């Protein structure tokens, strides 16, 4: 007699146990500490914070460990935790002009106030696997310079702005939307697009940004500036009427100077694409700024033809937690629906066979 | 939450909320959902709040369960006769109190409020018919008034109700509201601790 498969609960418990075992790995090897992950895999932690929309290196390190290094899984863990947090207030806009800079490069000027500062970059490393890193060879202390006063390092974009050569920086008035608190209805403003892009999957954003360079929504970009460093976070205390510094976050900002526009009424000027992400991630910030600019097509009367210019397409498909859930849900049982399809395909084939047989009889 | 003076009014605003915010809100919502799903049935929400007049207990309970900072509540004369009620609602729910009908998510209508004025509450848009107001209308009793025959979703065939103390032109206003479906307002009659819902999907005739 047929007995249906049972014991889902026990199977799930056993799967979780096995997962925990594989996560821990060889017990003779010391377990990774969160300090090691946050300190030595810090770019993975940065990505988890950026796409998890939560700045907390310790929790992000925990998520990376819990997810066995699967960063999308770690982002998911951080997001699911973030959603339960109460909102105590909103920070004042951060001022990246007052960033304590660790790295800063501009592609538009050879030299500029504050200078070019390479900082901790992979850029000019030769990608040769380094056997020394297989062990724990001592590492030289870095060369440090005295921290320049923030005033000495103006944003490149502000230099262009003062000359009137680039469009304004948008309208600071009005409260920005929050797609984690309100349902999105299209068309959306640039505020929601930037929020979505800041949270979007790095690979998705990278591919879209790349596509604009290959002609799918070309924006003629120049990197005005990429800067990485710490920025103070301040909140306004309503009853006191002033702002209080509650901490600092590491940010990567990219100001992309894009194709100029002008018309009979307006003199030509450059336009902007903007990228800002938690942690150190130039790839993400630069790709974001390309896609931001591409999505502004309507503002400049550009024809929207490419995926990167289509806000519904970009916003609905850039979230890797949504995407991975829906792609992977296909492994859940679908046998009820498959049965319905089986039934139909069998019927259609039977009917076609019958029709062939009837035709055969007629010609005979 | 802003500072408030320790007047008697303020004390009344702080008191009288749900004793158990999680389960009272759930219970009120479930009863209201049942009433909305089966228009014309009376649901007693229970004595869960104590709100200042002119707030009817059922209306106060409904708003305590469903209103918050995202849902402006319209009421008449919030600075005058409605001041204590407005203060209670603001404290208990965080909802902004508005005199602008077009901004209202919920509206606390006075008794026998003239339906002609209901047209200025949000009825939703053809793209978003859900962006519409829910009107709370106090009645004297759920029985003893002129008969109304209800039909539509939530009603197996027909359901007869006879609320007493309805404003003049109520049935005609509901018919007009139904004619605009899917746009329209949703109406909840309140009396004591009980509610009777008349969502826009309900067809109403006198009889």
């Amino acid at each position, binding site marked *: 007699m047929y007995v249906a498969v049972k014991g889902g609960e026990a199977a*799930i418990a056993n799967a979780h146990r096995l997962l925990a075992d594989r996560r821990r790995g060889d017990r003779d090897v010391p377990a990774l500490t969160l300090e090691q992950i946050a300190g030595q895999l810090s770019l993975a932690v940065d990505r988890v914070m950026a796409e998890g929309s939560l700045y907390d290196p310790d929790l992000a390190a925990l998520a990376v460990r819990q997810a066995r290094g699967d960063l999308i899984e770690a982002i*998911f863990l951080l997001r699911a935790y973030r959603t339960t947090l*109460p909102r105590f207030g909103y920070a004042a806009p951060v001022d990246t002009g007052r960033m304590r800079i660790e790295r800063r490069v501009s592609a538009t000027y050879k030299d500029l106030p504050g200078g070019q500062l390479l900082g901790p970059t992979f850029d000019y490393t030769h990608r040769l696997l380094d056997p020394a890193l297989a062990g724990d060879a001592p590492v030289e202390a870095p060369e440090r310079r005295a921290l320049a006063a923030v005033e000495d390092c103006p944003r490149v974009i502000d230099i262009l702005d003062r000359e009137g050569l680039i469009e304004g920086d948008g309208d600071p008035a009005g409260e920005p939307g929050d797609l984690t608190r309100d349902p999105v*209805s299209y068309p959306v403003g640039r505020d929601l697009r930037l929020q979505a892009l800041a949270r979007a999957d790095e690979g998705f954003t990278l591919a879209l940004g790349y596509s604009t360079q290959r002609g799918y929504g070309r924006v003629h970009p120049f990197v005005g500036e990429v800067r990485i460093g710490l920025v103070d976070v301040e909140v306004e205390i309503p009853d006191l009427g002033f702002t209080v510094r509650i901490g600092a976050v590491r940010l990567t900002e990219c100001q992309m100077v894009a194709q100029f526009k002008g018309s009979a009424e307006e003199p030509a000027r450059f336009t902007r694409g903007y990228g800002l992400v938690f942690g150190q991630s130039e790839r993400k910030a630069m790709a974001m700024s390309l896609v931001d600019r591409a999505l502004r097509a309507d503002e400049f009367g550009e024809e929207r033809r490419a995926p990167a210019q289509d806000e519904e397409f970009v916003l*609905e498909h850039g979230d890797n937690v949504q995407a*991975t859930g829906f792609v*992977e849900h296909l492994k859940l049982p679908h046998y009820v629906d498959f049965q*319905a399809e089986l039934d*139909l395909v069998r019927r259609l084939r039977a009917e076609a066979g019958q029709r062939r047989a009837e035709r055969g009889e007629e010609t005979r | 939450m802003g500072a408030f003076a320790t007047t008697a009014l303020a004390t009344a605003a702080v008191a009288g909320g749900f004793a158990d915010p999680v389960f009272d809100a759930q219970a009120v919502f479930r009863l209201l959902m049942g009433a909305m799903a089966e228009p014309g049935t009376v649901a007693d929400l229970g004595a869960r709040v104590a709100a200042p007049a002119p707030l009817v207990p059922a209306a106060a309970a409904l708003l305590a369960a469903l209103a918050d900072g995202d849902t402006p509540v319209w009421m008449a004369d919030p600075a005058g006769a409605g001041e204590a009620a407005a203060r209670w609602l603001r404290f208990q729910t965080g909802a902004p109190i508005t005199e602008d009908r077009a901004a209202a998510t919920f509206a606390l209508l006075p008794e026998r409020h003239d339906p002609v004025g209901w047209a200025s509450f949000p009825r939703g848009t053809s793209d978003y018919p859900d962006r519409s107001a829910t009107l709370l209308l106090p009645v004297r009793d759920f029985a003893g008034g002129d008969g109304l025959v209800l039909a539509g*979703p939530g009603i197996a065939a027909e359901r007869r109700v006879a609320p007493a103390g309805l404003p003049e032109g109520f049935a005609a206003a509901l018919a007009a509201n139904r004619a605009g479906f899917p746009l329209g307002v949703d109406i909840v009659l309140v009396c004591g601790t009980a509610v009777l819902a008349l969502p826009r999907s309900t067809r109403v005739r006198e009889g």
Partner: protein
Amino acid sequence: MRTTAMTAAATPGPAYNFAYLDEGTKRMIRRAILKGIAVPGYQVPFASREMPMPYGWGTGGVQVTAAILGPADVLKVIDQGADDTTNAVSIRAFFRKTAGIATTTRTVEATIVQTRHRIPETPLAAGQIIVYQVPIPEPLRFLEPRETETRTMHALEEYGLMHVKLYEDIARHGHIATTYAYPVKVEGRYVMDPSPLPKFDNPKMHRSPALQLFGAGREKRIYALPPYTDVRSLDFEDHPFTVQSFTEPCAVCGARNVYLDEVVTDDRGGRMFVCSDTDHCGTRRAEATP
């Protein structure tokens, strides 16, 4: 405020609210449900939260259930008609853990049934609520991927494209080739996606005495059918809507006129058909063997 600890008692961890969601989120979902009930078949946008389970695995249904659930509820969760599929087991355990509520596998005992892909064979009764997990709530999505377009189509009641698609099937195959997620029209107004039910279950939605709620988490939509709502499967006069029928009865309980799973028993074409609804099948067997 009563809270339910998610973590083991020994480890001080984050404490979550009853049924996981915070009260503000529940209020927002509850308001969306009420508007959904007032406009049957219309998809109400809601600010879906990121749940501790993946999108596509029932986050919409779980949020709806969490928003309506009270301590006296008895919850049944099915996936493919079965209470013992892993995702059904997992969702049931989630609510046991976060809400401490009673659960059941018996359709008749449940106050709330959360489902993926089936409606129980035992007719639902007045007072019961069924919550559907919905992956793609927009019935027009496969014809038009843009939300801005489909929203306008619903606003204008512009459903011609859907009929054209169904008629193309007839022209090509002699049948409407949609076998699940078969679109319905609600109260003569909104075309609605019934979630990926086999069309076998569509007639059960029509004038059901139970309240039917639909939650799509990733797509951020909630919709509803109040009891006794008119729900018609789209069809044509010369090609009326029909449901699947099975030639043989359930191999286990002998039931006819129920939906069956095809179970492959060997690799030489051996197969048998058994009830998809495990509660229905088990109840029949229990009744047959006193």
